[in-house]
């Protein structure tokens, strides 16, 4: 995996201004407009929260950015370039409902799928480097003892940690996460955010749908307020941000 990723060095990501740039994104579900004229950018190395009420289009926004939901006429640029160029540097944590929980798979298999490489997908065995990546990712979120457990035997919070570990194993530079902290206790959440804070120093970017308004300012430095349209995007530590957030939920 590391050999495959030599194409872009760490300094490449340091030199880019924005990790994500979206302009004029519109999305529909069966003729109902879910997102209208969405335009925003997320600076490289920021911890960005997408906040909005239920049905505001947060998950659709993430899916549209990644091309999982068809949208039209938009410009979506990752580090000033297209998704296909950087797909190996982008990790996605989906909502829990999009996964088949009855599938016979254990924790190690899920986390290690983060390092499956398109060029080596026929190989049965992982390289030593990949194994270290997977082990470290599991240790980081504290699920190393659960490696042999079936995914369905885990609690909601543990399941969530497995997906975060898979994203960490991908060793990405942009993490797109759909409600990644749902079901996580405060300590686990803090531990995972400590990792993201170290990622920030490496100019890695997190964009997460977040529901806990109390912890917003503690963990994130950039915010996208959404309710079908963009209500606000920018730094979280500006004056009057609390009022803006409240207005979205009214």
């Amino acid at each position: 995996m590391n050999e495959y990723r030599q194409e872009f060095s760490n300094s490449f990501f340091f030199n880019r201004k924005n990790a994500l740039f979206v302009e004029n994104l519109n999305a529909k579900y069966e003729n109902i407009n879910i997102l209208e004229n969405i335009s925003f950018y997320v600076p490289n190395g920021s911890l960005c929260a997408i906040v909005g009420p239920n049905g505001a289009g947060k998950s659709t926004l993430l899916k549209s950015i990644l091309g999982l939901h068809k949208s039209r006429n938009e410009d979506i640029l990752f580090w000033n370039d297209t998704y296909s160029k950087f797909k190996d540097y982008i990790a996605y944590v989906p909502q829990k409902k999009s996964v088949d929980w009855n599938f016979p798979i254990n924790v190690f298999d899920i986390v290690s799928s983060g390092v499956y490489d398109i060029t080596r997908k026929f190989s049965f065995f992982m390289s030593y480097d990949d194994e270290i990546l997977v082990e470290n990712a599991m240790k980081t979120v504290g699920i190393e003892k659960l490696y042999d457990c079936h995914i369905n035997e885990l609690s909601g919070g543990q399941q969530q940690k497995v997906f975060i570990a898979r994203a960490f194993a991908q060793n990405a530079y942009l993490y797109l996460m759909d409600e990644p902290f749902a079901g996580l206790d405060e300590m686990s959440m803090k531990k995972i955010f400590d990792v993201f804070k170290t990622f920030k120093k490496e100019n890695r970017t997190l964009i997460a749908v977040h529901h806990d308004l109390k912890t917003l300012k503690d963990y994130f430095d950039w915010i996208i307020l959404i309710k079908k349209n963009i209500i606000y995007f920018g730094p979280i530590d500006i004056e009057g941000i609390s009022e803006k957030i409240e207005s979205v939920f009214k």
Partner: protein
Amino acid sequence: MLIYSLIPNLIILSIAIGFPIGFLSSYLVVRRWSLLGDIISHASLPGITYSFLFYKSNNTFYLLIGGILSSIVSVILSFILQKYKNLPKDSSFGLVLSWFFTFGMIGISILQKANVEGQYIINSFIFGNILTFPFKDIYWKIFICFFISILFLFSIKIQKMITFDPCFSSLRYKYSELWDCLLLVSGITIICLCLQIVGILLIGTLIISPGVIAKVLTNSYGKMILLSIFISILSFIGGVIISMRFTFLPTGPLIALIPILIAIFIAFKRYLKEK
């Protein structure tokens, strides 16, 4: 004596077919496409019948090509109904199955009225009869089975991801949808290859049962595949040998009966254990 001389060939064929059937069964069960096995087999009937009407030949190659093509069309049609007409999975599968089987039965009626020579071959596809299996072309069939098994074996990681987390798989693997199609076409091919042995009406049991039994017994996809292959091979060899020993019994139902007996045995054993 002639029948007994076929036994080594039959055992080799059973093992060769057991492998891809085991892989396919596991894949269809975890993908929640179990009914697809039934659709593929039933939808092959019009292809087989009309190929026979067109070529008026007993050559199974043409019949198999017809069967494979009509099964592919049926699978595409059922997915189109699901995707663009928002039909539930079971409704679209059931609908397509009945449509294609009806077309097939119309073809059989035409055949019977036209009194075309060699019609017995169509019956062997419907009910399964190992004695009508053309052993002269056994080698290319074994090669196809081997090739399909290899395809399934080397795509296990992709199968896991396509099934468990389709979003992740479509993001991570550029060709995940292509792999899905390739595995389905391989599945259709192997089902059509087995039709002459097990029969259109019963192959559904053989496609679904090994995977379901294996899934009940294990929590690992790898182990599930191994168990499923074992059950498939056991069913083929058991069915063929019992059919040879008691020649009045047809091969198809016997092959389909063995996984049912295994399922009953496992259920009974579990019941006793719980008691």
